[in-house]
């Protein structure tokens, strides 16, 4: 093909469009391909359904049990989102305080790290003693497991304001609160959203852990019951639904991030354009 034709603006635009379409479809293709290989492997090697059920068996199980799946995943989503919302509020506040005061940082940080190192499975029984089995232990486990990344990231964003910029503002008579409001907080936002993406996925881990230990509803509880009955396709159905919920929440976080802090990721557009040419 002649090089001239390749370089024409129309050809470049068309190539860029093709590439964007491919990028949009690629995740679906990968997921579809994975299920196909999985299905084929199960059939070829005649794997027993109670060891590894085929995607078709899982789908059948989903159709059969759609009602309990729906109510239980709704319960999990609710506990996760409430715990996550608490983590956002608490994480932002604590992050701002830790990021703007060296004293608070020195005083609290070791405790926070110790706290974060405790496996949350070990905390669930205590929460059950305090609040009873069910809703609150799941919410609180989701909260406890997801606030730490938010605190650390927000604190980092605020603590790393350039000294010159701080000088410019201080010389103008800005109070520490002014500096946090005008510079620290906006600057911490990309860090904050990056942490949300981590936090929302671990929040699901938290609530499901709690549900498998002590609960009478939720997707974790459902999987526990299903596995005790050796209904492995239903266990897998629960896993897949959890994954879907995680991706959906992640997508919400990314969308909000792109809307609010596009200025921080502007560099990513350039390589994309560059590869089109």
């Amino acid at each position, binding site marked *: 093909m002649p090089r001239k034709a390749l370089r024409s603006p129309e050809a470049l635009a068309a190539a860029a469009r093709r590439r964007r379409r491919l990028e949009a479809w690629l995740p679906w293709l990968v997921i579809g391909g994975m299920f196909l290989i999985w299905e084929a492997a199960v059939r070829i090697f005649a794997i027993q359904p109670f060891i590894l059920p085929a995607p078709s068996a899982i789908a059948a199980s989903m159709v059969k049990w759609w009602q309990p799946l729906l109510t239980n995943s709704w319960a999990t989503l609710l506990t996760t989102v409430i715990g996550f919302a608490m983590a956002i509020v608490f994480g932002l506040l604590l992050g701002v305080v830790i990021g703007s005061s060296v004293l608070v940082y020195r005083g609290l940080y070791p405790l926070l790290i110790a706290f974060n190192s405790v496996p949350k499975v070990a905390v669930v029984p205590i929460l059950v003693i305090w609040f009873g089995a069910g809703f609150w232990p799941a919410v609180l486990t989701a909260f406890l497991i997801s606030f730490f990344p938010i605190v650390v990231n927000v604190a980092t964003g605020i603590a790393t304001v350039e000294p010159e910029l701080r000088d410019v503002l201080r*010389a103008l008579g800005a109070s520490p609160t002014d500096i946090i409001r005008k510079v620290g907080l*906006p600057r911490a936002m990309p860090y904050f959203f990056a942490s949300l993406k981590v936090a929302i996925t671990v929040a699901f881990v938290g609530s499901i852990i709690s549900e498998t230990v002590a609960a009478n509803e939720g997707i974790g509880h459902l999987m526990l019951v299903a596995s005790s009955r050796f209904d492995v396709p239903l266990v897998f159905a629960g896993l897949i639904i959890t994954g879907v919920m995680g991706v959906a929440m992640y997508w919400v976080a990314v969308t909000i991030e792109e809307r609010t802090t596009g200025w*921080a990721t502007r560099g990513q557009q350039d390589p994309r354009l560059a590869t089109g040419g």
Partner: protein
Amino acid sequence: MAQAFVDISNVAMRYGGVEGTLALKGTSLAVAEGEFVAVVGPSGCGKSTLMRLVTGLWPPTEGEVFVDGQEVDGPLSIAGMAFQNPTLLPWRNILDNVMLPLEVVQPHRGQLRAKRADYERQARELLALVGLDGFEAKFPWQLSGGMQQRASLCRALIHQPRLLMLDEPFGALDIFTREDLWAVMQKLWLARRPTVILVTHDLREAAFLADRVLVMSSRPGRIIAERRVDFPRERTMETTYTKEFQDLVHELRDRISDARDAEEIADAP
């Protein structure tokens, strides 16, 4: 004698306690209102420390700093600052970046809501003066380094400070951009006539812009020489090619060499 606008007498500055680094010692300096003074010296001679003392960001270890007849004991809101790094906020467009000081400094802060249109007009005028008209809605990362520095100068001037402190503002720019910005800086100064203290290690820059050049010794820094610069304004790049200009730069260069030699002798065992 009437007190100078900026009057530093016998100031010492030591970092990190009694055993810390002595950045300045026995430094005295007087700048008249509306004067453009450049401070040059070898690197690490405490030029930036001097800036922070004058703006009240740090208190001196010894001595006194007076600005406009008042002893400096805290940040000075009549001062504007610009640094080598433009430090524009990436989430604000150029206009909003320039207007940042108005959101912080009194009395503008209280009037911002009521007089927003007026302030915005001032910011646009200032941006036009440095050749950034049409870029108000752009974001800092869409501008070149030289343009960012122009915007940074506007931010330093928007609240009409009587004192402008510049800490190597053109140090990170290439030579052509730097020379453009000298002209821009001179234009701003002629239009607004603030008192300027420019800290730099570029002797041509000092000679081009300043009314008076002060040479600092190496650490601990103090003023060891002073030279008036009498080239008529408005100076152009042609000025820098004249013999007088070259001689002046040469002379300043020699003074700094002397300062460094003196230090080496003092350091010898």
